């Protein structure tokens, strides 16, 4: 049988951000996209500081993957859905999650785990790949309900090895579910490089096993990701089914705030990828097009810091979780066992 070992990679910006040709986005969109990238980056940097101060729990950084996440979120409508793994804080921010909730979420505070009613996102998933069949169901429900909303599910290169990834893709394709399966190929699954995770060159090739399109985008090129995600979303809305979108990027940061990559990789590689930094790259694009300058940059930084500090305030204002909340929300109505436990935790027995 013939092989298609390589899939061409969608790219619109050179490593320094120079447009390689006509861009499929308007100037306003480009500016909007850059601000979204910076917002995400700012949160990630400040979150790490909080974590180091012991004010957050284990935190999965996303530095370097902003374009892969923001680009997809920008292609979605408010009534669409995002089904994330644990690393999609950038997508969540862009999709409308209040920063204060995200701070609380990574502080492992119940107030953060209850997503606002007006945000169609499921709280971050820890068990790898389990979100994929669920996302297929969420997407299929949109069609059953006569809507043209779509769902975007995120997973990593390592996650593609799990059975749930396969079952989810198969369900999505068999039912023509309006779903974007976004695989952020950041080169690593904790300490395991993608080449040890699978034999195939391109994760997008896996789409062929399900009879759906497989697309590869430069994951550090916001224009490329946004464009590819938009096309996949339109296809899904038309009822033509799911698309597998592989974004080529790199986890330049540790796996989480508690990981030490020097135990398993040469950080030189991360340095190489830092040169393709998605945020700087987009800024390069704007500068090249005369849409951006140092003043704008400084103003934006100030604005973002103000926003973050306000969010921090808000997060601090959240009430301390109560011990008895442990046995609340197990069932809609507490069973006799939860009632007994609840009474004990309230000191009433």
């Amino acid at each position: 049988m013939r092989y298609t070992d390589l899939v061409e990679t969608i790219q619109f910006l050179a490593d320094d951000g120079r447009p390689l040709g006509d861009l499929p986005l308007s100037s306003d969109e480009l500016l909007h996209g850059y601000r979204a990238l910076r917002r995400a980056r700012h949160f990630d940097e400040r979150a790490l500081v909080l974590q180091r101060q012991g004010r957050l729990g284990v935190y999965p950084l996303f530095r370097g993957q902003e374009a892969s996440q923001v680009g997809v979120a920008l292609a979605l409508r408010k009534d669409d859905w995002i089904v994330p793994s644990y690393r999609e804080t950038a997508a969540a921010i862009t999709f409308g999650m209040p920063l204060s909730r995200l701070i609380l979420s990574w502080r492992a505070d119940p107030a953060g785990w209850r997503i606002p009613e007006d945000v169609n996102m499921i709280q971050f998933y820890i068990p790898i790949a389990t979100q994929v069949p669920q996302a297929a169901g969420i997407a299929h429900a949109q069609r059953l309900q006569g809507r043209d909303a779509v769902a975007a599910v995120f997973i990593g290169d390592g996650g593609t090895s799990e059975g749930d990834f396969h079952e989810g893709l198969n369900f999505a394709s068999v039912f023509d579910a309006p779903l974007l399966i976004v695989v952020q190929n950041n080169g690593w699954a904790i300490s395991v490089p993608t080449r040890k995770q699978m034999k195939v060159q391109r994760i997008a090739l896996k789409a062929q096993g399900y009879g759906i399109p497989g697309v590869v985008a430069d994951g550090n090129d916001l224009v490329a990701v946004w464009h590819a995600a938009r096309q996949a979303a339109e296809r899904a809305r038309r009822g033509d089914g799911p698309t597998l979108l592989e974004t080529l990027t790199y986890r330049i940061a540790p796996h989480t705030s508690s990981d030490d990559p020097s135990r398993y990789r040469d950080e030189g590689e991360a340095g190489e990828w830092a040169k393709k930094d998605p945020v700087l790259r987009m800024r390069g694009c704007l500068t090249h097009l005369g849409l951006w300058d140092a003043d704008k940059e400084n103003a934006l930084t100030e604005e973002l810091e103000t926003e973050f500090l306000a969010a921090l305030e808000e997060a601090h204002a959240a009430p301390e979780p109560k011990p008895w909340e442990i046995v609340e929300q197990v069932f809609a109505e507490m069973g006799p066992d939860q009632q007994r436990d609840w009474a004990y935790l309230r000191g009433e027995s």
Partner: protein
Amino acid sequence: MIAERGTRVLNNVQAINEALDLALEHDPRTLLFGEDVGVMGGVFRASDGLQAKYGEKRVFDTPLAEAGIVGFGIGLAMAGMRPIAEIQFAGFLYPALDQVLSHLGRMRHRTRGRHTIPMVIRAPYGGGVKTPEQHADSPEAVLCHVPGVKVIIPSSPERAKGLLLSAIADPDPVFFLEPIKLYRGVKAEVPEDYYTLPLGKARVVREGDAASLLCYGGMVEVCQKAAEVAAREGVELEIVDLETLTPLDTGTILESVRKTGRAVVVYEAMRTGGFGAEISARIAEEALDFLQAPIVRVAGWDAPYPPFSAVENFYRPDAKRVLEAVRKVLTH
């Protein structure tokens, strides 16, 4: 066969089929799916005729993947549908246990009530009819150790219909395990119309004062046989059919044991770690002073349910073994 007005005599499969039919009619959000549930109507015909009646959008076959079935259902439920998934046999729930343990029972809790999973997962379970390997498993203990899911096991057509309709209407995920042995074996009067029966309640199906037989599902029939034999010897056994394993109706169990002072716990799953251990533990914690004899368990042996049909009946508890246990607690 004509019965009293408003009811007909049905077996368990027919009663379940009727409940599914009414649920689909009752709420347009209801979906029914699984392996071979569509055109074929299920390997036990529980969904017979329903795809023809409600269409392929609402009653459909899925790919052969249990984690996919449960995960897909979780997604449908979180997005506002009312999924009823059939797992072809309880022994094939295992590939879906990650979805069950990681999400089905946790989603409401982890999202603080923001996302909930009103989903029913039906599965035939248990032995007694010489099915192939793994088709006779009884994994209820595993499901009862999962916080946030309810576990229902009916033992008669009339109860099965009402309990299944309650399970489908419940706001939380419910496992509905159907004893294969009773699918066609048991027939009874079943009301025609839509009705629900309360979850979370155990039922005294036979009153007695000599000892309490605590059981559920396929073992209720076995305990009834034993009780009849004992009655001939003038020994009146009380039978408590749990029906709901979680949330467990401890009150009814304790009431019976406090009255009889003797408890025999009967289940067909492997003895060690079976749900009967939980029943014993609760009695030993809350009714010890009333006990006049040890709490005896009659259960499957500490081995897999044998795939060797010639000996399968020596694995599954029968009236003889139940009576031996009764003798033990009575002569203590």
